[in-house]
């Protein structure tokens, strides 16, 4: 049970859930799907980044942002700007009146690259910006709002308004942003053609890798005291405050964390889909992202991944066969999840599947799991035995959360 042996962690129940997801994403789906479908799964997974952020921000800390599309979009635009500059070599754009700048700038009579585009010639700057720009904006919003105790519904509405503002701004400033068309026709990443099947497959695996990185960061935060504070803050904000915590700082942190995840997701989206447009920033996109999180289970970071995958797969499936029905299904999903399954898939899993698992686990690995029930029975000296960084009370799949 010691955390010092990371291999053993994979044999714990929580570890097995991660292994199962990894097997699904790394082995099963690539084997089962052709590159085209796999690319679509890759696209769905980019939304999972946002959903993980929302679990941390909304599920744990109770901050509902209806503007996550903003951060997703900013990360995506940063990446798109880099790729667009790479695609806009003077040779490739020779027919323009000003060769060497992106085509849409030329159409809008710009004769030189705007200053804020210049740094995006650098790949390392771009990577920094993919996380930095969303985090910076999240920090500004978070600082202004949380230090003034704006929360709950107000925060949701204001983030929604920010999504609206950014959309109008990007569409209106089309000379600088590509307008409603977005930034399209992206071809290569540092000379590597991202449009081929092989590239798309590689990008899919990169995306999965990044997703697990984010999952582990989220898990680290959730299982540390930080995660406990976030949950505690949600339930008893004043108690946390008067226990000596700067509540605003914690909220800003988790909001920035969610923004960073969304930014990474956006950048991966740009790479996988091949363009970025304002339609992923707007209100509708942002609220859809909330449903991925809600369906998966708003307290479960793994649930968020499954939520994003399932909703999007269902959307593709439905819209191929019954396009008329999809909005009804989506609407019913929102209402159903909220009314009947507020803890989403993760909640259902806990209620119905985990008891079965318990039986199987007990039969097969009785010895290994003895320690856990022992913890539950009030033992005078319990804590020394607990894995310091894994705390079942906080873990998303723990029965206490149901």
């Amino acid at each position, binding site marked *: 049970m010691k955390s010092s042996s990371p291999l053993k962690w994979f044999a714990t129940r929580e570890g097995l859930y991660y292994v199962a997801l990894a097997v699904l994403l790394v082995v099963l789906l690539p084997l089962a799907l052709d590159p085209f479908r796999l690319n679509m799964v890759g696209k769905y997974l980019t939304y999972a980044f946002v959903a993980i952020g929302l679990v941390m921000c909304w599920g744990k800390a109770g901050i509902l942002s209806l503007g996550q599309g903003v951060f997703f979009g900013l990360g995506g635009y940063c990446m798109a700007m880099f790729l667009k500059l790479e695609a806009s070599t003077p040779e490739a754009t020779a027919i323009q009146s000003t060769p060497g700048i992106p085509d849409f700038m030329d159409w809008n009579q710009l004769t030189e690259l705007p200053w804020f585009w210049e740094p995006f010639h650098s790949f390392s700057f771009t990577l920094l910006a993919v996380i930095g720009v969303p985090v910076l904006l999240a920090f500004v919003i978070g600082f202004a709002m949380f230090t003034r105790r704006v929360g709950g519904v107000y925060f949701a509405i204001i983030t929604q308004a920010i999504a609206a503002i950014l959309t109008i701004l990007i569409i209106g400033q089309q000379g600088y942003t590509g307008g409603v068309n977005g930034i399209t*026709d992206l071809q290569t990443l540092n000379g590597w053609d991202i449009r081929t099947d092989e590239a798309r497959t590689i990008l899919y695996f990169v995306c999965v890798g990044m997703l697990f990185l984010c999952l582990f960061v989220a898990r680290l935060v959730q299982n540390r005291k930080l995660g406990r504070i976030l949950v505690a803050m949600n339930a008893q904000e004043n108690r946390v405050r008067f226990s000596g915590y700067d509540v605003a700082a914690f909220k800003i942190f988790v909001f920035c964390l969610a923004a960073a995840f969304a930014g990474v997701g956006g950048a991966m989206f740009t790479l996988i889909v091949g*363009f970025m447009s304002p*339609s992923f920033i707007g209100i509708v996109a942002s609220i859809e992202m909330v449903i991925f999180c809600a369906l998966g289970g708003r307290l479960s970071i793994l649930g968020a991944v499954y939520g994003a995958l399932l909703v999007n797969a269902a959307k*593709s499936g439905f*819209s*191929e066969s019954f*396009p*008329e029905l999809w909005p009804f299904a989506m609407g019913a999903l929102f209402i159903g999840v909220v009314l009947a399954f507020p803890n989403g898939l993760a909640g259902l899993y806990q209620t119905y599947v985990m008891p079965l698992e318990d039986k199987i686990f007990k039969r097969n690995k009785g010895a290994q799991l003895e320690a856990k029930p022992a913890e539950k029975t009030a033992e005078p000296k319990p804590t020394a035995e607990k894995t310091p960084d894994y705390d079942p009370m906080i873990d998303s799949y723990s029965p206490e959360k149901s």
Partner: protein
Amino acid sequence: MDTTDQAANGRSFGKGLGLKKSLMTLAASVMLATSAQAAVPATAEVNTTGLAVTDDTVTVGILHSITGTMAISEIGSVQAEKLAIDQINASGGVLGRQIEFVQEDGASDWPTFAEKSRKLLRQDNVAAIFGAWTSASRKAVLPVIEQYNGMLYYPTFYEGLEQSPNVVYTGQEATQQILASIDWAAETKGAKSFYLLGSDYIWPRTSNKIARKHIEDKLGLKVSGEEYYPLGHTQFNSVINKIKLRKPDVIFASVVGGSNVAFYKQMKAAGIDFTDEKPLLLTISVTEDEIRGIGGENVDGIYASMKYFQSLDNPNNKEFVAAFKEAYGDDMVIGDVTQAAYLGPWLWKAAVEKAGSFDIDKIREEFAGIEFTKAPEGYVRIHENHHLWSKTRIGQAQPDGQYKVVYETEELMEPDPFPEGYQ
């Protein structure tokens, strides 16, 4: 308005849409135009790149939004493309093969368009794609079409600035629509000042850029204002006030979508009677389709510059309108884009038969100069830049929602997607 349902039947395959009757009447005339094919050429000859062509069928793709905000506009195109396909099938098909189609829904979402175009090309191996409507959706599918060397037949009038070897643009590009109409306003109506107004996205902005250059540099006239509102904006009182103050001779409007309804209603309410032509309103965005939503009485007297109006008086158009109404109902109206969408399958057929092959590369060689004499708009020819030579017409809206054609260019307008001096 049951057309949504008809169009939205998803992946229905293009055999018989209750069109039999109209097909019978049409078949005879079309058969003559396409000359009966005695011998069907072998599949291996006409298809060397693995397209979905069998000995008696060929599969094409239709890719429009039938859900979401753009469905309103795109459904007419879907109907027209299906009608054209059915007529071609009734007349013997293409190279002796019946056309089947796979229809995909772009869902008004640009990545979905890209995704579905990839599916059509990679999984269905379609020989042609008829689809896309907004510029954004075209820009989204363009890299995919180019990558997999497909061929897109794009029906909408658009901003130009594009010339892909993998797209045939069956609508007008901006200069075709704009230059002739501004000249007309200046010459016939004696207009001296223009107020440019549009929804805020690339097509209106580019169109107005061309219009401004033409008005100021070529004609030496005045632009008294240029203004954009977000898509979906519904409050136009401020701009109406500005127009009243600046008293332009012409309002040159490219407002689209739901904003249109609010704009014309509020103009009307503000006491502007378009039949007075003070100012004269010239639009490049209101087709007969849009008028149905705005209400004929609200646009009575405005002028539109397009290449096609439903009221065009020629035999081709009469047949087309009759067939369309027979297929989809008497209350259907046909706008400019719907007609342009109808051209797509016919132009593809002509190119395939000229090339004697479905291969994209061989077809591309043959595009320049391909004619379609049975076009409802009269006569069109493909330019080597993949756009169409076509006439530009000015129509004046009537209270019944139809346009009365008041002017038509004598010659076909040359498409010029990269107009010199307008950039």
